[in-house]
C-alpha cells in the first residue's frame, strides 16, 4: 500500500519535472537579451556572433532547442556553462553539498528554537506581561530583519570584534556557523508564528475543554494534546522552509562567500548563462518536490487518520 503510493508519486515526478523544465526553459527564452552579445562583447563582428550562436545552439528554433535539452538531461548531462565551458552537472555536484550542509545546520537551529518560542508564545498569549509579549515580539523581529544586514552585523561582532569565527569563505564547521545562524533566524521566526497560530486554534476546540474538565494538568494538555495536533502544520512549514533552502540562500551565500547553489544561480541569471540557470533551478525544484513528498509520508506517522490514495 505505502510502497505503491511512493512508487506512484515517484512516477508522477517525471511528467512534473518535464513540465517544470518546459516552463523554465520557455521563461528563460522569453526574457529579452541575448547571451551571445554579452559573450562576444559589444564590438564583435557578425561572423563571430553567428559562430557563437551556432556553437551554443541558439540559432535553432525553440522546439528543437527544448528537445535537445531534454535529450541531454535524459543522459544525465546538464550542458556546459557558456562562460567557463565547465559541465554544469559537475559544478552543481560541487556546490549542492555546500547548500545542503548549510540548509541542514540552519534547520537544526531554526526548528528547535522556533518550536520552543512557538510553544511559549502560544501558552503565554493573552497575557499582557513579559512572558506573553516577548516571544511574539521576537518572532515578529525575526521575520522583519534584513538577512544581509544581520549577516554583516554577526560578521562584525564574531569575526572582527571577538575574532572567534572566520568572516567568510567555504570550509569546515567554523565557516558554517555564522551563515547558518543568519539563515535560521527568519525560518525559526516563521516556524514559531505558524506553531503559535495552530496551537491557539487547537486549544479552542471542544476536546481540549474536555481534557481540562477531566482535570488534566496544563502542561499535559499543551504538550500531549495541543502540540501533538499542531504537528502537521509544523512539519509542513519546516519542510517548505528546508525545501526553499535547497534552492540556495542567495543573500546569505553572497555575504559569507559561501560557495552554494544560490549564488551560482544568481550569477547565472545576471550573466544570462542559461545552462547554469536551468541546471540550478531543476536541481532545486527536484529537491523541493522530494522534500515535500517526504513530508507527505510523515503525515501518516504523525496522524494515523491520514490516508493515502
Amino acid at each position, binding site marked *: 500500500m505505502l510502497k505503491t503510493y511512493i512508487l506512484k508519486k515517484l512516477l508522477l515526478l517525471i511528467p512534473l519535472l518535464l513540465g*517544470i523544465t518546459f*516552463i523554465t526553459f520557455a*521563461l528563460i527564452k522569453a*526574457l*529579452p*537579451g541575448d547571451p551571445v552579445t554579452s559573450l562576444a562583447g559589444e564590438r564583435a563582428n557578425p561572423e563571430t556572433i553567428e559562430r557563437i550562436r551556432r556553437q551554443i545552439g541558439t540559432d535553432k528554433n525553440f522546439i528543437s532547442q527544448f528537445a535537445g535539452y531534454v535529450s541531454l538531461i535524459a543522459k544525465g548531462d546538464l550542458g556546459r556553462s557558456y562562460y567557463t565551458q565547465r559541465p554544469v552537472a559537475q559544478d552543481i555536484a560541487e556546490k549542492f553539498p555546500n547548500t545542503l550542509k548549510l540548509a541542514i545546520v540552519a534547520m537544526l537551529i531554526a526548528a528547535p528554537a522556533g518550536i520552543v518560542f512557538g510553544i511559549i508564545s502560544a501558552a503565554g498569549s493573552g497575557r*499582557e506581561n513579559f512572558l506573553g*509579549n516577548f516571544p511574539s*515580539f521576537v518572532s*515578529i*523581529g525575526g*521575520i*522583519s*530583519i*534584513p*538577512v*544581509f*544586514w*544581520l549577516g*554583516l*552585523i554577526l*560578521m*562584525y561582532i564574531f569575526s*572582527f570584534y571577538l575574532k572567534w569565527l572566520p568572516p567568510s569563505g567555504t570550509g569546515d564547521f567554523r565557516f558554517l556557523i555564522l551563515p547558518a545562524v543568519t539563515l535560521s533566524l527568519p525560518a525559526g521566526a516563521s516556524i514559531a508564528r505558524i506553531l503559535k497560530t495552530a496551537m491557539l486554534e487547537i486549544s479552542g476546540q471542544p476536546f481540549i475543554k474536555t481534557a481540562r474538565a477531566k482535570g488534566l494538568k496544563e502542561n499535559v494538555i499543551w504538550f500531549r494534546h495541543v502540540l501533538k495536533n499542531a504537528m502537521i502544520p509544523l512539519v509542513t512549514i519546516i519542510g517548505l522552509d528546508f525545501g*526553499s533552502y535547497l*534552492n*540556495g540562500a*542567495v*543573500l546569505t551565500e*553572497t555575504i559569507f562567500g559561501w560557495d552554494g547553489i*544560490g549564488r551560482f*544561480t*544568481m550569477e547565472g*541569471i*545576471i550573466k*544570462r548563462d542559461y545552462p547554469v540557470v536551468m541546471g540550478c*533551478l531543476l536541481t*532545486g*525544484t527536484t529537491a523541493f518536490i522530494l522534500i515535500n513528498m517526504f513530508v507527505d509520508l510523515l503525515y501518516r506517522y504523525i496522524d494515523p487518520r491520514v490516508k493515502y490514495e
Partner: protein
Amino acid sequence: MGSKTAIASLILITLASVFAPLLTDYDPIRIDLDSIKEPPSFSHPFGTDNKGRDILSRILYGGRLSIGIAVTAGVISLCLGLTVGLIAGYFGGKIDMALMMLVDLILSFPSLLLAIGISIVFPPGIFTVVIAITAVGWASFARLIRGNVLSLRECAYIDSARALGCSDARIIIKHIIPNCMPLSFIVLGLKLGGYLLTESALSFLGLGAQPPMPTWGSMISLNRIYILSAPWMVIFAGLAIFTTAVCFNMLGDALKDKWEVRIEK
C-alpha cells in the same frame, strides 16, 4: 497596545521621510570631503559616510524611496491580484483554471530569484524594483482573494441580488469587492514588511535604485566594505529597515486579529 505603538511609529517614520528637508539641513547626495567617516556626534547623530554625507539625512531621504517602493508595489500587487482573484473566483471554469495555473507557477519559483530574473530584464532603477516585486507579489493576493470570492459567491445575498436582476458587474462592484476589502488589507499589511525587505535585498544586490540616490538597502550594500572602520555606516540603515518592517508586520498582525474577532461576532 503594541499595535498602536506600531501604527504611531509607522506614521512617524513616513512623515519624517516625507518632510525630510524640514528635519535636516544636510544634503543627502552632495559630497562633503571635510567630514568623511565621522562617528556619531551631536551634529551628525548617525555619523557620516565615506563621502562625508550625513547618514541620518540619507536615511530620511532614503525612506522616501524604500517605503515608497514597498507601498507602491504593494498597492499595485493588491489591485492586480484583486482583479485576477475576482475574475477567477467569480467566473470559475476554464478561466479560473488557467489563471490559477499561472498563479501556482509563479508561487512555485524561489521568489527572490524570480525577482532577480525580472529585474535584469529592465535597466536597474526604481521602476524595475516595483515591477520585480509586483510581478511576484500579485500571485499571492490573487490566490487568497479568489478563495474569498469562492465562498462569497455562494452566499444567499448574492443569490438574491442575482434574482433581483443585478448584472455581474454590479454584483462584483457593489457586493463582492466591499466584502473582499478586509482580507485585502490584512494581506497588504502582512506583505508590506516583506516587500520592504525584498526592495532592500534587490538594492543590496545592486539591482535597485542607482547611486547617488540613497535607499536603505543600497546604503548597506555600498558601505559594507567600511564595516570595520565605520560600523555606523551600516548599522543605522539596517535598523531603519528592521524598525519599519517590524511596524508593518505588527500592523498586519493587528489587522488580522481585529478581523478574526469580527468574524466571531
